């Protein structure tokens, strides 16, 4: 079986339908375990006190915000090159999730920032880049909303996402150049393998990341299925109208 057959709408509906309950189950289970673990059963940091518990939502949300945009980028690219409708609609489905994740990351960061840095908001490179990312999400969603024909909308938004990715990346480096900030470096350097976070904090954090990731997958699947159904409904409606016009 060819890999791309998974992107056939009918095939997609069938396998995603089977996968969906499992995705939801594992997502909610791991999220619940991770957050309860993080909230109730982890020690306080000697320096940050109990605010360290915010890490279990702040970091995964921030990660998923960036991953959502990455996924939209790949999906847009696939639509641009191979024109699979599932891909375009998956990108559309992911955008609001990414926006909510961005907002969660900003909001929890602000709450965390107040006791630690003494301010809710600082014009720090990471905070600012997230704000800019948030604007890119909003623009992308707004363009989808504004266009009526779904194929043209998919075309234009995919171009916007591709070009936007370049500029989002550029903004990130420009912002770093502009202001060195308060924010600590990355807490989970995957590449180097060394951690600045202790194992006591890291285990629930890793589980929370898994939970956010699974939740993202479950949400994208659900929302993509919705979009596909709506697309099919539009096609049926159009056919009905045509039949009515012919019979008159």
């Amino acid at each position, binding site marked *: 079986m060819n890999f791309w057959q998974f992107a056939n709408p009918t095939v997609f509906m069938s396998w995603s339908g089977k996968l969906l309950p499992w995705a939801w189950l594992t997502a909610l289970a791991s999220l619940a375990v991770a957050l309860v673990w993080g909230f109730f059963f982890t020690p306080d940091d000697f320096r940050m006190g109990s605010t360290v518990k915010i890490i279990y939502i702040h970091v995964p949300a921030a990660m998923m915000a960036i991953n959502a945009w990455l996924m939209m980028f790949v999906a847009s690219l696939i639509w641009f090159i191979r024109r699979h409708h599932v891909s375009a609609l998956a990108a559309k489905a992911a955008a609001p999730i990414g926006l909510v994740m961005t907002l969660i990351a900003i909001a929890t960061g602000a709450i965390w920032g107040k006791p630690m840095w003494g301010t809710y908001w600082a014009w720090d490179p990471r905070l600012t880049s997230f704000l800019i990312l948030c604007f890119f999400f909003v623009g992308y969603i*707004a363009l989808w909303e*504004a266009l009526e024909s779904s194929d043209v909308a998919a075309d*234009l938004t995919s171009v916007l996402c591709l070009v936007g990715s370049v500029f989002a990346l550029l903004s990130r480096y420009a912002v770093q150049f502009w202001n060195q900030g308060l924010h600590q470096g990355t807490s989970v350097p995957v590449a180097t393998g060394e951690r600045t976070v202790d194992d006591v904090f890291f285990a629930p954090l890793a589980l929370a990341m898994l939970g956010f990731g699974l939740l993202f997958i479950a949400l994208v699947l659900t929302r993509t299925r919705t979009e596909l159904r709506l697309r099919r409904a539009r096609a049926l409606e159009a056919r009905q109208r045509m039949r009515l016009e012919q019979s008159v």
Partner: protein
Amino acid sequence: MKALFWRDLKLAVASGGGVWLTCVFFAILVVMIPFGVGSERGVLVRIAPGVIWVAALLATFLSLDRIFASDAEDGSLEVLAQSPLPLEALTLIKALAHWITTCVPLVVIAPILGAMLGMPFVSLGPLVLSLLLGTPALSAIGTFGAALVLFVARGGMLLSILVLPFAFPTLIFGTTAITSVLSGSGEMTPFLMLAGISLGSVGLMPFASSAVLRFGLR
């Protein structure tokens, strides 16, 4: 190609003094700032580069909907799209015409406004240079945005929302270029980055814009 360029220039100049309106808008924006923040000289000098850059940004983007709208209304855009001239060239010419008719006048009056905000004489050169280097990127990005909203019913606000985030890098390097001169560090990096962003945008954005037009007109 040349003919199209001249036609666009003439249209822009002829259409209700669009050039003047942008300049006046830009000037009013800048002039309003002292009334908003107070006329204390130290404050004004410090915020002047940013104020002028943001005002230039808004003035540039406000005139974007002119780029394609009139051609789309009278159908000449479709004719142009079928002509042997590649769409990439068309969008490049449109961006160039937009730059000459809106950005160049802004660059010309910017030093006057800068001086009014109390910027020292030595910083006016860098101000002009940074605008000159940075605004081509704005025109190229703006043409892309204008192409996107061409297929939307009421695109005015949407256009700004789509295009403004793209301008962050240009704005950041534009203002840091001036402040680095003002602080005497004399760093060249922001100028080089501005030039790089402009070259990249002018070189690559026409492809994006024409892809959008091609999709939309199909």
